[in-house]
């Protein structure tokens, strides 16, 4: 079902917040809406949003690609987004990410076998001084984890596992 039909009321409400000639600005809230159920924006939704806002699909995909809070692929229960931008890299973020992936037995962008954690490398999360750091996105919202070490991360993953059980 198209986004417009499925969330008719919400879409209308969102669009009402923007002047009709600038309705393309509604792309952000609409993407949140599209992502709400599955945790990512699928191709169909992108098409729908492009149609609603009279912009191209590529423009919508571009916005999804730019922000680390929008996703175009299905992931595990928690997304673990490690910042690997320059200041973080100087503080060992790359190394940290490598070790983390090694420990979990996955590659960057992959999900652990139990479907709990997806590890991603992202651009600046604005916590350069507290690197290595990552944010988790999951059922309980977005959380920052700073000054991380491998041990503390593994503990966190255990805790997340516990939370699930």
């Amino acid at each position, binding site marked *: 079902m198209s986004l417009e039909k499925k969330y008719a009321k919400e879409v209308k409400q969102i669009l009402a917040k923007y002047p009709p000639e600038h309705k393309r600005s509604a792309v952000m809230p609409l993407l949140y809406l599209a992502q709400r159920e599955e945790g990512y924006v699928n*191709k169909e939704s*992108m098409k729908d949003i492009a149609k609603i806002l009279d*912009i*191209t*699909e*590529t*423009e919508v*995909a*571009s916005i999804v*690609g*730019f922000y*680390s809070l929008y996703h175009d692929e299905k992931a595990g229960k928690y997304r673990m987004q490690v910042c690997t*931008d320059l200041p973080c890299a100087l503080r060992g973020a790359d190394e940290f990410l490598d070790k983390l992936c090694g420990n979990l037995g996955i590659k960057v962008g992959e999900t652990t076998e139990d479907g709990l954690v997806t590890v991603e490398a*992202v*651009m*600046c999360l604005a916590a350069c001084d507290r690197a290595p750091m990552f944010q988790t996105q999951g059922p309980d919202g977005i959380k920052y984890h700073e000054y991380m070490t491998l041990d503390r991360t593994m503990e966190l993953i255990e805790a997340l596992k516990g939370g699930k059980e």
Partner: protein
Amino acid sequence: MSKQVTLTINGKQVTAPEGLTVADAAKLAGVDIPVFCHHPKLEPVGMCRMCLVEIGRPVFDRATGQPVMENGQPKIQFMPKLETACTNRVSEGMVVLTQSEKANDGQRGTVEFLLTSHPLDCPICDKGGECPLQNLTMEHGSGKSRFNYDEKQHLEKMVPLGELIYLDRERCIQCARCIRFQDEVAGEAVLGFDERGRHTQIISISEPGFDSVFSGNTTDICPVGALTTVDFRFGARPWELKAEASICSQCPVGCNTTLNTRREAKAGGEIVVKRVMPRQNEEVNEIWLCDKGRFAYHYTEGKERLTKPMVRKDEKLARASWDNATKTAAENFVANKKDFVVLASGRLSNEDLFNLKSLADTAGGEAILYSDMDGGELTQLVGVGAGTNLGTMGKGDAILVIASDLYEEAPIWWLRVKQAADRGATVIVANPRATKLDRFATYTIRYSYGDELKTINDFEKKSKISDAFTKAKNAVIFYGNEGLGVTGTSVLSSACANLLKETGHTGSANNGLIGVWQRANDQGAFEIGFRPVADLEKALKNKAVYIVGADPVGDDPNLAKALKNVKFVAVQDIRETATTEIADVVFPAQAFTERDGTLISGERRVQRFYAAVPAVGDSKPDYAITAMLAKQMGVILQGTSASVVFDILANSVEALNELTYDALAQVKEQWPLVGRNDVYYGGTTYDNTKGLGVQLIPLAQAGGAVKISKVRKEAALRPKDKELLAVPSNKLYDLGVTVQTAEFLEQRIGETSVAMHPTTAKKFEAAEGQVVKLSFDGVQAEAVVKFDETIGTGVVRIPRSMGIAIREPVVAKVQVKAAAGKAK
């Protein structure tokens, strides 16, 4: 001219128009500031940081508002850091240093950064040799890098963005020129950035990929080899290519092009055209070219080219000498003197058409233009005035586009009209269905097929739209043949001409009527005296026909039938066609790439094209063949060279009076400066050194009395039950011989489909994607149904040149084919 400001660049005092960026002002003054992301046709963004310069501005006393003086000179305050020349506008008293040590250091650093992840695979890169990154690295790079080669990004080498354009992400420097071109200039934002930081990459997820007819232009302005065309992929190195000026022969816009040629082993050691590049003409195509013009030139090559004259002998076409072939034809034409007909198309040059017309006139024959569109005699009267430049139309001006889908018929006009709309011009789009121009239109009029005349007549009534048109400073009307044939366009063009005359929009620059013709030189054919006829079948029946540059047999079964009952057929073409198969005599002609000539664009600009490659086989230019044939018929025509024919033409046709090849080859300096050694600035578009052409003066501008015949209203067609009104429309990539031969365009041509309103389709129980049988007027055809909710009910829209012969609106029977096609 806008206000001028004076500034100092590298110690040299220069003046530049206010509002210009420092980078552009420097260019104007002959100072090169290196740029990657900046392009004179795009809005500045300051993304690449290559144009870092030192900028100082005079200090003003806050209390008095006077400049602070120091040693008798205004005190200049330099910014502590370097600034981008592309985002700073010039201001009075500004001081710019582009070569200072600090500036050089900044530029050197930028190159070093840009190269941190560039693969440096210049030897295999199609851009190598005309690459801004290569050139600027040589000029401004340090030659050494402090970065680790191990950390270069390694990505898949080639990602097709569509079937026409390939992306190499490793080479991309994220300047966004392509994205910005698609968004700002073409108005089709089908390219975008994905991801962030070092992972940033170009994506296109349109269907089909990179869905724009302007996509080839992005490869011209790409400052690296990230975007390359599939056609030229590994085709040649740029320095090996020869360049010859030409004119695009695909549509009436008359884009200036450059043909790049090279000797090729794959072509059996012949010299062939390797690519078509735009050539700057700011009044015609600026520096752009549509994909059809860029890619659909392959029809001039291949096995189907005619190389030898042929004469029918014992029911079979056999090779013959020129003498024999022309003699045979001449004898037959002389024997059937009263029934001599010349049928020629606007694919031919003015020289060819002039000789044909002279022959027809002298031999007592009729000269017919092979076209579904009439009205050329009106564009001679009230066509756009000399000096017309769509690029100067903007606020206060109006452009009406009626019965034409410019995007499909003349893409560069679409682009120019869209840009006029961006500048504030009132664009009125009147069409029976939605077109891509609607998005940029101020007003959209949706009429029913058949109501074209009424739509124009409604401009006489007072309304917002008619006011906007009438009161506009300048107004231009584009009219086409969507849903119309010869008769319909004749009526429509008269109505348009009348409207222009009554509103005073004739006889001056940026005012007048433009025909969106089917072929490049239809306007020229009208100037020379060719006219289309409403009933071509009747006009050909029992005649001795000389067909030049047209394929009536392949286009229309009715014409094929008509040509079976003729006394004699001589066909002159560049390729084997269905018509050459039935011919009694076949003359091989040279393609426009092989000879000189002139074309007249829809804006009535006479432009020259030049021979770029040697002729195939024994082929000769059309005008020369006609002269040979004429000689055998006892008529003396010039056929030695195009310029000689043109001189006579210019003396015989009043509108062209006193024009010479020299005048057509005149150039003047154009802004922006492109195509010189500094490919980094304007892209790889060619500079115009071979002529800007001359725009003809319409009668209204010359002060002549303009008389427009009264518009006749014809009876509308009335489809009965189980019948539909079938109307023709035009498609950019069709099965026409000029497009079909480029294999990689196959997907864009697509299957033959007809459009119907869902309600209409429902009545015939046809689902989308289903195959229906159409029968009308002796034509039987099958096509896939596509829904179009924007057209009226009771109508089926059939694209021209897609295998279903439709020249004008007709009543058609529609039947759903029993076995339903797969819905897509």
